[in-house]
């Protein structure tokens, strides 16, 4: 088997496929996609609900349908891919080590690599939910796989901890399959899920969303028999006297997604402690030259449409890198989150001879009504740019399109913060 490639894309989910096909459109031909699953398409294969593609295709598609658009393009372009092949390590010199039942242990080398391994779910253990450790506790994504791919029902009487989107979707899914969903508990005063999912998945089915609530203990020896829940105070501590028990046989957790960056670490890529993903510039290039990152491995997106857009940029950049056509960097400006903003991606913008429009992705750290997001430098009173938003919430990513001239005009770090009007 051939071992040298122009571009290797790790992960054949929406991000990897968008990157590979965009690199193809940019003129690159020597591309390989490596996917550990038995099919392309990534997590979307188990997301059988609709709501995908409104931005990208102006159509409402299911997850598998959305993924199929990119799979079809990959097939049309004739981009080769390996399935059932897991990448175990990426070295800083852009060698990858992979294994597969058919091909054995492989060492492949590429001029450029796109990291698009997606994310995993945070677990009950990671957030220290006390109690026993019976069967019947699982993440929403695992339940989704059991139901939508394998065809099994994980439980009949459910409590959902965490109001992330996957949890909201699964509240509806369990209900449609005849299971009882007692409540969705959210420790924060707001849901981290999309508003449309709260309406369509909870409200429409009369499932209560208990804000400022958490599970204080899991009960049951072999299988879950119930959970204790309580209201929490401003410091997220249970309020004495509010504890009560809900009988259930299943606890589903939807308490956050974490970028899957084990390979980025082996590659020596610098990670952002807040996003859990790589530190990148506007071309999605990481701290290791020729290594790019996009999709949920970079930052957890709430809409796959954004994943596709970001990944196409990564794919194009990787192609330009291989073709040695990336413009020369004059200087790098750091983009730093300030008050009200948890993180910003890209973490730095390279200023070049060309002035290009830059998209900044960020998450607010709290709910703000009637606010503006401002870009400023330390030295100047006046903001460099200002973006009004009627409502900001941690559950919905903010995307700002910033004129390139803003960056070309400064030398220092740019701070991105929220100003309440």
């Amino acid at each position, binding site marked *: 088997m051939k071992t040298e490639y122009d571009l290797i894309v790790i992960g054949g989910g929406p991000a990897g496929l968008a990157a590979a096909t965009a690199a193809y459109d940019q003129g690159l031909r020597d591309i390989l996609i490596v996917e550990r699953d038995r099919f392309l398409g990534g997590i979307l294969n188990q997301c059988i609900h609709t709501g995908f593609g409104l931005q990208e295709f102006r159509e409402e598609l299911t997850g598998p349908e959305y993924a199929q658009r990119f799979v079809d393009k990959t097939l049309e372009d004739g981009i080769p891919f390996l399935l059932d092949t897991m990448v175990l390590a990426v070295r800083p010199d852009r060698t990858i080590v992979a294994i*597969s039942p058919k091909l054995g242990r492989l060492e492949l080398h590429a001029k450029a690599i796109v990291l698009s391994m997606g994310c995993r779910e945070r677990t009950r253990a990671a957030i220290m939910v006390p*109690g026993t450790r019976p069967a019947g506790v699982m993440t929403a994504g695992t339940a989704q796989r059991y139901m939508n791919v394998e065809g099994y*029902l994980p439980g009949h009487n459910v409590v959902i901890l965490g109001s992330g989107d996957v949890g909201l979707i699964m509240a509806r899914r369990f209900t449609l399959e005849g299971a009882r969903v007692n409540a969705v508990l959210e420790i924060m005063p707001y849901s981290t899920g999309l508003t449309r999912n709260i309406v369509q998945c909870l409200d429409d089915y009369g499932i209560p969303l208990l804000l400022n609530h958490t599970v204080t203990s899991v009960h049951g020896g072999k299988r879950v028999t119930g959970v204790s829940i309580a209201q929490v105070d401003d410091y997220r501590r249970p309020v004495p006297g509010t504890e009560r028990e809900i009988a259930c046989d299943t606890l589903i957790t939807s308490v956050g997604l974490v970028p899957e960056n084990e390979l980025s670490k082996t590659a020596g890529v610098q990670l952002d402690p807040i996003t859990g993903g790589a530190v990148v510039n506007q071309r999605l290039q990481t701290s290791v030259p020729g290594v790019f990152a996009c999709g949920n491995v970079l930052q957890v997106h709430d809409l796959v449409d954004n994943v596709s857009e970001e990944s196409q940029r990564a794919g194009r950049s990787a192609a330009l890198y291989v073709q040695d056509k990336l413009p020369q960097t004059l200087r790098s400006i750091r983009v730093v989150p300030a008050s009200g903003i948890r993180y910003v991606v890209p973490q730095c913008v390279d200023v070049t001879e060309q002035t290009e429009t830059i998209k900044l992705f960020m998450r607010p750290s709290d709910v703000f009504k009637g606010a503006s997001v401002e870009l400023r430098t330390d030295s100047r009173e006046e903001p460099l740019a200002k973006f009004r938003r009627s409502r900001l919430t941690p559950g919905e990513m903010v995307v700002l399109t910033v004129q390139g001239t803003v960056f070309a005009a400064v030398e220092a770090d740019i701070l991105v913060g929220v100003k309440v009007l």
Partner: protein
Amino acid sequence: MTEQRGGGQMLDVVIIGAGVVGCATARELSRYCLNVTVCERAAEVGQGGATKANTGIVHAGYDPMPGTLMARLNVRGNAMYDQLTADLGVHMERHGTLVVAFSPFERAHLEELLARGQANGVPGLRILDHRELMELEPNLSPEADSALFAATGGAIEPYELTLALAENAALNGVEFLFEHPVRSVKPISGGWRVEAGERLLETRFVVNAAGLFADDISRMAGAGGFHIRPRLGQYLLLEDRADYDVQRPLFQVPTPMGKGIVVSRTPDGNIIAGPTADDAQDKDDLATTADGLARVLTGARKSIPRLDTRQLVAEFTGARAVIAEQGDFLVEQGAAGFFNAAGIKSPGLTAAPAIAEELVLLLKGAGLDTTSNPAFIPTNTHVPLFRECSPEQQKRMIVEDPRYGRIVCRCETVTEGDIVRAIHRPTGARTVDGLKFRTRAGMGRCQGGFCGPRVLEILCRELGLDPLSVTKCGAGSEILAGRLRPEGENDA
């Protein structure tokens, strides 16, 4: 071993409990020509009690009071570990242990432990000053004053050892019955009748290694005499990271506030912190509590300040079997032909091989025929897990069996080949937890979120199980509750 096994025939020894003590005893007895059966209420080896949830430290032996059975069996057990782990292909990290003092005042206690250890015959004890200590453990709090270093201390994966003991015993002819809880133990002429699950076993001798429930079993046999209370110990398990990594178990000098929290590194590379020590009533309630976990964290950070909860992979509770009436291990003939190994709290893991020896001596004294088994094989054929192999070996493994080329658990790099093998070994895995403890599939960051469905599928295929009957840890802990498609349609 003259008669055939089967209905009504007299066994030589029935062991109750397949924890580390029961399995070590089974393996010790398999050196002789005997019919031995182990009855365990849990679905798998080492999953029913303390053996599953402890700190995994091979204690040097400076802690127990001189003259106690515990002191003698601890030191003896520790000395047996090199040979035992070599024979069984079990991984042990013997880099010593440290008891850390955080003030000159606490240093006095180290002197006391040193003297106690010397009285117990523990070799290799030494007090380290601050500088020597920080060289050994750079992530230790700068508040650390000094420490007692015990060169013979180490760390082991308790379930790995226990599985290897059980496997070796099985290889040498011992029969294991899982999900066979013992309900009665009655004297009959020339021995005992043991009711285990649906089986009635007749045996000349009984060994009671039932951990927390050893008092109940003893009472069934009419021996009685003691009561066991659980003392709960909660733990945090974290992924390791350079800024809070430790090289060896770090104890703290006990204070009036408690025995202190241990931070240690498991041979599999996790950082473990715990245990608390809280007396409880219900032997079946192994819940963690917010308060308990908070105490573990505070205590652990006294030693290792940078411990980061964002790296948590699991929290769990273990229960020490504490005899209300006495502090020492109880290894005795409780009634004619009925033997107790009870109150085996810490350092019971370390002492287990010596407890097994002790029990065999007692059995011999009571007339057990110890003719050597000429076919006894002391070693297990160690087949390493895929992730433990060199690139060259890995290449070969995949060529020989392509299932080694398919990763099932991405967090811990466990292949389908590893899983299939763990199912088909002697006393092989039958449950999701059983596979987890054998291969680490599901023990990593995502806690089985990714590999759970695949593990379930493989268990079904290899054991001919219906998916709805696959359990986490035995009957009653089924993972799935129903089908969404007609049966058969899932297998496409």
